C-alpha cells in the first residue's frame, strides 16, 4: 500500500507555514523537555509541587481502582460458584465449597488478625509515628521504584520521613501532595541505608539493587561476616532512619558483600507507618580550644 501524502502541503503558503510552525513548536518543546530532565538532575525536588498535585489528582483514581480490582476478583469467584451449582449434586458441593471457603476465610481472618495486632502493637509502641496509612499504588512501568501512600502533607507527612510496615522498613518519603505522597523503596538503586548485622552488630550499608533485592556491603575490608539467613536492621547512624527496624534477610553470600531480600515485600504492602525523622542525641560539644 502506498503511503498517504499527508505531509505535502501543496502550493498553499498558509498550509506550508502552518506545517513548518508545527515542527518548530515540536522541536522547541523537545528541547524544553530535555532541559527539564537536566534540571531535575541538578535539583531533584524542583518540581515537587507540580508532582504533588498530580499524585493528589491520581489518588482517588487509585483508591477507586482498588475497589474495581477487588470487584473483578469477586466476580470471578461468583461465576465459578454458579457453574458448581449447576452440577447434579449441587447441594452437597455448594455446602462443601461453602465450608471450605469459610475455613479459608477463617484462616485469612486469623492471619490478618495477627498482622493487624502486630501493627496495632507497633503503632502503640512507636512514639515517633506521624500517621498510619495505606499503600495505594506504585510506579510499575518506570525504572524507579516508588510507591504511593494515601496520606500527604495535610496529615503531617514531610519529605525525608522514613516509612515502615509491621514487617520492616519500606523506604523514605520523597514527594508529598496534600492527600498523597510518594515513597522511594529500599530496593530503588538510589536508596542507601546505614544498617548493622543483628547477630554481631557489625555496621553494613544496604543499597537497593533496582530489581527487588538489596546489596549489602560491610564497611570494614577483609572480613566476610555474612551468613545465609542473617538479619539486617537499621543502625540509626547519621539520623533519618531510627535504629532497630528490620530491613532484610541475607539470601546469598559473596566474599565481602551479600544479597538480601527485603522483609517488607512491596508487592503485598497494605498498611504503612510514616515515622518522624530520627535525630540522634547530639554529641557533646568539643572542648574549647585555649591558646598556648
Amino acid at each position, binding site marked *: 500500500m502506498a503511503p498517504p501524502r499527508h505531509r505535502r502541503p501543496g502550493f498553499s503558503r498558509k498550509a506550508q507555514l502552518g506545517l513548518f510552525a508545527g515542527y518548530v513548536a515540536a522541536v522547541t518543546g523537545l528541547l524544553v523537555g530535555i532541559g527539564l530532565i537536566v534540571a531535575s538532575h541538578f535539583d531533584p525536588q524542583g518540581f515537587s509541587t507540580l508532582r504533588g498535585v498530580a499524585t493528589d489528582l491520581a489518588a482517588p483514581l487509585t483508591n477507586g481502582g482498588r475497589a474495581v*480490582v477487588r470487584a473483578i476478583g469477586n466476580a470471578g469467584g461468583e461465576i465459578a460458584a454458579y457453574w458448581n451449582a449447576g452440577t447434579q449434586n449441587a447441594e452437597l458441593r455448594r455446602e462443601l465449597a461453602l465450608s471450605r471457603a469459610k475455613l479459608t476465610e477463617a484462616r485469612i481472618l486469623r492471619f490478618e488478625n495477627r498482622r493487624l495486632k502486630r501493627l496495632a502493637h507497633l503503632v502503640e509502641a512507636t512514639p515517633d509515628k506521624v500517621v498510619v496509612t495505606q499503600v495505594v*499504588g506504585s510506579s510499575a512501568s518506570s525504572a524507579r521504584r516508588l510507591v504511593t501512600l494515601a496520606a500527604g502533607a495535610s496529615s503531617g507527612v514531610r519529605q525525608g520521613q522514613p516509612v515502615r510496615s509491621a514487617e520492616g522498613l519500606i523506604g523514605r518519603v520523597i514527594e508529598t501532595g496534600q492527600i498523597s505522597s510518594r515513597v522511594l523503596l529500599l530496593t530503588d538503586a538510589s536508596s542507601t541505608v546505614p544498617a548493622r548485622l543483628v547477630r554481631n552488630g557489625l555496621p553494613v550499608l544496604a543499597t537497593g539493587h533496582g530489581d527487588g533485592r538489596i546489596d549489602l556491603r560491610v564497611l570494614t575490608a577483609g572480613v566476610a561476616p555474612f551468613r545465609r539467613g542473617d538479619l539486617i536492621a537499621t543502625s540509626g547512624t547519621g539520623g533519618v532512619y531510627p535504629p532497630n527496624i528490620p530491613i532484610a534477610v541475607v539470601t546469598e553470600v559473596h566474599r565481602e558483600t551479600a544479597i538480601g531480600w527485603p522483609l517488607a515485600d512491596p*508487592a503485598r504492602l497494605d498498611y504503612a507507618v510514616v515515622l518522624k525523622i530520627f535525630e540522634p542525641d547530639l554529641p557533646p560539644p568539643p572542648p574549647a580550644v585555649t591558646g598556648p
Partner: protein
Amino acid sequence: MSRIEAAETRTLLPLRARVVPIATTMAASALAVLPFVSDTPLLPPFGLLMLLAWRLLRPEMWQAWIGLPLGLFDDLMSGQPLGSAMAVWTMALLALDLSDNRAVWHDYWHDLLVAALILTFCIAAGWLAAAIVAPVAGLQTMVPQLLLSILLMPMAMRIAARLDRFRLAR
C-alpha cells in the same frame, strides 16, 4: 489527501472525533496509577502504546507537537522524571514523520516493525532519563517490559481501530 484538505476536514470534524484520541491516550497514561504494586518495572507504557496506535492508524490527525502535552501528562502519572516522555514521544513522532516521507509502501507488518523499533527506543530513552536523575538498575531490567509492550502493540492497534469507528460514526 493534500494538507489543505486534511486541515479543512479536521476543523469540520465534530468534537467527539477530535477529543476521543486525546482522551483515550490520556486514559491509557492514567492506567499507570492503577493499584498494582510491583517490584520490577513490568507494566508496559500504555500511554505510548495508544499514542503509537493512533499515529499509525491516522498519520494526518496529529502534528508532532501533540507529544508535548500528552507526554507531560504521562510523566505526571508515571513518576518518571518530568520532561522525559515529553521529549521522547516528540522525538518518536518526528521520526515517524521522517520515515513516512521516506517509505515507499507500508502495511501491517511494516507498521508493527516501526512500532517495535520506536518502543525499544522510547523505553531505553525513558530508562536513560530516569538514570540521569537518580541511579537505577541496569538496562536489562527493562527487557520484560519491552517484550510485553511489543506483544501488546497489535492489541493497541485493534483498540485504536475500534475507537476510530466510534469516533467517526454518525
